[in-house]
């Protein structure tokens, strides 16, 4: 079967791509997509270690992460739509009302 480090390196690349997306993109929907990439990298690690340690708990936690991610996307997109309705922009740099 697949060796552990190969999957972990793939997950590291997905996570790094997500970090770049969150830092460099200004479109709020793009930022949410980058967060999804990072959550998927975490899921990959959970599954890879679940296989390596022969413990099914990792897969159960991956399912929980998927459920939380679905809730997060729903709420996140509702916020983005509300933001667009009020400000006519979804640029995350322009949302600085609460910035200290």
């Amino acid at each position: 079967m697949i060796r552990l480090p190969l999957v972990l390196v793939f997950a590291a690349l997905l996570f790094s791509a997500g970090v770049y997306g969150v830092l460099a993109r200004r479109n709020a929907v793009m930022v949410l997509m980058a967060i999804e990439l990072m959550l998927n990298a975490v899921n990959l690690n959970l599954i890879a270690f679940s296989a390596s340690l022969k413990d099914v708990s990792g897969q159960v936690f991956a399912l929980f992460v998927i459920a939380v991610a679905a809730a997060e996307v729903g709420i996140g997109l509702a916020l983005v739509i509300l933001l667009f309705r009020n400000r006519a922009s979804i640029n995350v740099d322009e949302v600085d009302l609460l910035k200290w």
Partner: protein
Amino acid sequence: MTAQEYAFLVVAVIGSLSAIAVVTARNVVHAALYLVVALAAVGVTFLLVGAEFVGWTQILIYVGAIVILFLFGLMLTKAPIGRDTLDYMGWKSRAVGGALATVLFLGLASLTLRVWPVGTTPASPPVDGSTAAIGTSLFHDYVLPFEVVSFLLLAALIGAIVLARKDDGGDQ
């Protein structure tokens, strides 16, 4: 190298390239479509590792539902398709993000390969990812988290409706 590893390498290369395309694409709709490929690659990896149930769940929920939700979000916010005025990335944020992501990736990858060298690490055994095994664990050891997640989903459902509802004419 087993057959699964060759298949995984192909899938991982496709997934990595499309993940990078997601965060660098100028066109947000293209980015959402690249996201489909990246998430499907992750799902296929789950299947190759042997986690069938999670793999199919990944494909159903991410590719089937979450990306569609993203596309709805893009359409509803009238993203100017093909133009980058909405998503201007200054060279500074790109440089900082790129540098940080590169350092993070190199650090994580070198750490991983130092702890588990590819040459000497034994192949992971096929994991029992059947629905029966997951269900037994989920409803035997993790019943309380399961109920909490169901409550979270209910709260998210109500919250999303309340947030995105149109207030016509103010409150009565």
